[in-house]
């Protein structure tokens, strides 16, 4: 295995201070290789979103090893309506990551945005619209484009299709699979949905109570779960029959 793009070993993290300080992650270890998709599944409170935030450097109260060997890792959130600035146009939103990356020339920014649109299935006419004037699927395409346009190779996807209707969900998952191949991306894919994880991921880590209870190849885990919690989760997942 080449040098991992994410290397986490015995990671612990906490929220709060003093008496209210609460441990969220417990001895979490995982590796993500370049070009790999690693799913992290768990239910509410499992710590999966906290793990995602750690990878992006958004959690500071941590101990253990956390190495991210990719500049500017980016995140795509569940609800693009909440993560896109409602007052700005799509064009502005897509130029913003380039501005923060130091691309000062306006013409260059605009050209790079226009060049990027076909990759995520958006049209030039969308550039003048605001998030409210887009459909849910289009908004998530904008959020994905905004995450990718700086040239990041590591993308953390936090429930990226959970808020979408099932037909849109299928389109966005297909888009993510295509982008991964075309751009050589690595994904850390956070989800509560085992069926969605199966479709996109090479390996999966199952989390509960802040710990990874089982990790391995998706087929191996889905066909031969060893941990009782994984078995329970699979049994409850109605979409997999």
């Amino acid at each position: 295995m080449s040098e991992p793009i994410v290397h986490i070993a015995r990671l612990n993290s906490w929220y709060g201070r003093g008496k209210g300080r609460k441990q969220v992650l417990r001895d979490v270890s995982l590796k993500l290789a370049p070009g790999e998709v690693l799913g992290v599944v768990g239910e509410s409170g499992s710590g999966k979103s906290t793990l995602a935030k750690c990878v992006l450097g958004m959690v500071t109260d941590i101990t253990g090893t956390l190495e991210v060997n990719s500049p500017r890792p980016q995140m795509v959130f569940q609800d693009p309506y909440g993560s896109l600035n409602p007052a700005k146009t799509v064009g502005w939103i897509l130029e913003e990551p380039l501005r923060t990356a130091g691309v000062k020339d306006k013409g260059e920014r605009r050209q790079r945005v226009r060049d990027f649109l076909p990759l995520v299935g958006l049209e030039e006419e969308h550039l003048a619209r605001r998030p409210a004037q887009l459909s849910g699927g289009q908004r998530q395409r904008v959020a994905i484009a905004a995450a990718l346009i700086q040239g990041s190779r590591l993308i953390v996807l936090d429930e990226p299709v959970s808020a979408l209707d099932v037909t849109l969900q299928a389109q966005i998952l297909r888009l993510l699979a295509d982008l991964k191949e075309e751009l050589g991306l690595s994904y850390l894919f956070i989800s509560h949905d085992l069926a969605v994880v199966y479709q996109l991921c090479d390996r999966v880590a199952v989390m509960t109570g802040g710990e990874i209870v089982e990790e391995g190849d998706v087929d191996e885990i889905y066909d031969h779960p060893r941990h009782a919690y994984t078995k329970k989760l699979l049994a409850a997942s109605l979409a997999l029959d």
Partner: protein
Amino acid sequence: MMLDVQELSVAFTDRQEPFTAVDKFSLQMDRGEIVGIVGESGSGKSMTAHALMGLIPRSRAAVTGRALFEGVDLLPLPREALRQYQGRDLSIIFQEPMTSLNPTMRIGKQVEEALFIHGKLSPGERKAKALAAMELAGLPDPEGLYRQYPHQLSGGMRQRVMIAAALVLRPRLLIADEPTTALDVTIQAQILDTLKDINRQEGTAILFISHDLGVVKALCSRVVVMKQGRIVETGPAEQVFHHPREDYTKLLIASRPSRKKLRGGGEHE
């Protein structure tokens, strides 16, 4: 026949362009049946449920057609007459129990609420009925929960409280509008088991509204597929899921995540 809905339509009149949210919806349901309505956002599935419960303000929308419950058309009934049916004959539970429960009211009182509207019972009788309904809804230690508040309960427990409140008068029809959508998958499985138990034990018919085909397939014997206010396809669950006739139903089923690998550039089994 318990429920006979004939050409139910809901047309919103309170906006510039009149908008038909439900267009000639028809459905027959027998006692003890579990029927699913499945569709995406904007399909009109929730609006249909709300119209049947009389929850659409008449100032905002015209509700036309007929909705016969045991032979009585519910749609033209005045508010007070309709209240005699709500809770006693048909009840509804919603997706988000936290917004439907009163945060300042103890669990027991909320479960009992329908008993105040229907009939005069002593406090002791009310409590006995509430505890029985809580037991039926699968709540552990009903006596202890009786005095607690909603914020002290988990999401799954809150939904069980809603189910208990909806069942306290033992209605013959329970309308469940995405009742497990906000819940974790293991909790969802438990709630679905509870609904099945209630259906078996009490003979309560369930009209189950959901965007989730997997859930509908697990629970319902008959399915109605809706899109943009109209019924696309209807039939026994087995037939609709395994031999869909309409393109939209096929698309819905094909879109459902399954054990199928997605790879860039093409799909592989």
